[in-house]
């Protein structure tokens, strides 16, 4: 298993180093326009939020996997974990606002000892939609997780799970040896309780991201391939495939630099800039919360340590919808991944 950048004391484990890298080089030299210049040219600067609909809460960076592209730099060595008290603060905000979706992510969120409590409470207070970003293999990682599919079902959770390819080879190269096979087993268990079946109303979406330094293809066409292949070979059903462009931060940034693909990848993103994707970027309808309760415009900014603008509030204890709605979203060059081609968000393509 590879190790997290953190465990390796890699310099990119420091958030400032990543931001520095993205701000300098080809962008500083003017070889490529910055994201700010680019959105200014189409009158989207400063980037402003629309109505807040999604609360994406990252309840910890611990994970049973160590995927090569992970933007969280998650792994078994990461100890950052959200307490029940912070979860309660998130629930308070959800109870007081019209935010309809709670999107729980990590790491592997299920590894947080208060994960089930959090989901159950969210359900109890009437949060309309609860999404769990499950990596699938966690379900089979330990007997204590075996009943997760029925727990998810009982609470009407929508599952979003990464599966970068419908074959073992590419999947395992990105996510680790044997991950594909275990993921397929987990998908079968989810299917068994009704997930991904049209009639059940239990939503199981898969997330596709490219297994290298290239952009995702057309979402509908990839979905068709995934559906056919997974059905034919493993008899698996799922609802939608969401394509996500890899964001050049953390371990994926490390991969880009190490493989000599960084400049070309950034150029590709810039050239694929699609003004029509800008209104759909997820920071416009989402707030991201970290394990300590700090607020960010998105999960990527969270990993870069770029908190919401200081003119708005920056901590859950201080949550103020009004100030947040007036904030300027914090941007940098990694944002180009959200606006390339058909655009990209945690809900897949946007344009």
């Amino acid at each position: 298993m590879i190790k997290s950048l953190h465990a390796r004391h890699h310099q990119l484990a420091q958030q400032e180093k990543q931001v520095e890298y993205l701000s300098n080089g080809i962008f500083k030299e003017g070889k490529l326009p910055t994201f700010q210049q680019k959105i200014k040219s189409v009158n989207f600067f400063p980037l402003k939020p629309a109505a807040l609909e999604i609360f994406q809460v990252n309840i910890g960076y611990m994970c049973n996997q160590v995927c090569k592209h992970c933007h969280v730099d998650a792994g078994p060595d990461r100890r950052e974990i959200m307490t029940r008290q912070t979860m309660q603060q998130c629930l308070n905000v959800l109870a007081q606002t019209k935010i309809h979706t709670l999107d729980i992510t990590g790491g592997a969120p299920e590894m947080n000892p208060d994960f089930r409590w959090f989901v159950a409470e969210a359900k109890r207070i009437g949060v309309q939609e609860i999404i769990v970003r499950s990596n699938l293999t966690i379900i089979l990682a330990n007997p204590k997780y075996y009943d997760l599919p029925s727990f998810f079902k009982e609470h009407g959770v929508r599952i979003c799970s990464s599966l970068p390819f419908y074959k073992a080879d590419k999947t395992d190269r990105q996510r680790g040896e044997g991950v594909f096979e275990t993921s397929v087993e987990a998908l079968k268990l989810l299917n068994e309780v009704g997930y991904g079946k049209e009639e059940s109303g239990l939503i199981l979406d898969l997330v596709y991201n490219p297994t290298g330094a290239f952009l995702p293809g057309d979402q509908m066409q990839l979905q068709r391939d995934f559906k056919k292949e997974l059905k034919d070979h493993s008899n698996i059903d799922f609802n939608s495939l969401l394509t996500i462009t890899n964001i050049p931060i953390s371990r994926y940034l490390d991969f880009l630099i190490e493989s000599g693909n960084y400049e070309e990848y950034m150029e590709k993103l810039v050239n694929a800039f699609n003004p029509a994707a800008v209104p759909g970027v997820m920071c416009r309808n989402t707030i991201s919360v970290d394990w300590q309760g700090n607020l960010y415009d998105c999960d990527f900014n969270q990993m870069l340590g770029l908190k919401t603008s200081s003119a708005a509030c920056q901590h859950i204890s201080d949550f103020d919808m009004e100030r947040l709605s007036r904030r300027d979203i914090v941007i940098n060059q990694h944002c180009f991944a959200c606006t390339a081609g058909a655009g990209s968000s945690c809900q897949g393509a946007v344009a």
Partner: protein
Amino acid sequence: MENNTYYNSADLKKFGNIADWDKNLAAKFFDYYGEVFKEGDLTAREKSLIALAVAHTVQCPYCIDAYTQDSLEKGATEKGMMEAIHVAAAIRGGASLVHGVMMMNKAKKLSM
């Protein structure tokens, strides 16, 4: 600009510049090109793999660069991409060999 190689990878991005010296024909070509690669009875991925095989047949480095990437984006596997090139190689090799019959015909005619 001084350049000692016939091919320069940066030139691929300048493909569109052919319009500088004949806008009309370039527009017609790129229009046609775009239409060709749209999904039809063949999927976009199948078309990309055909393009990759043809790229190896005409041995165009720009096309190999572009369609390796395009095939990956369209969700082709590395094995599938290699299979496509073998198709090109088989047709290429076969095309030489099947002409062996022509050679044989001629040789037979000429010989006692």
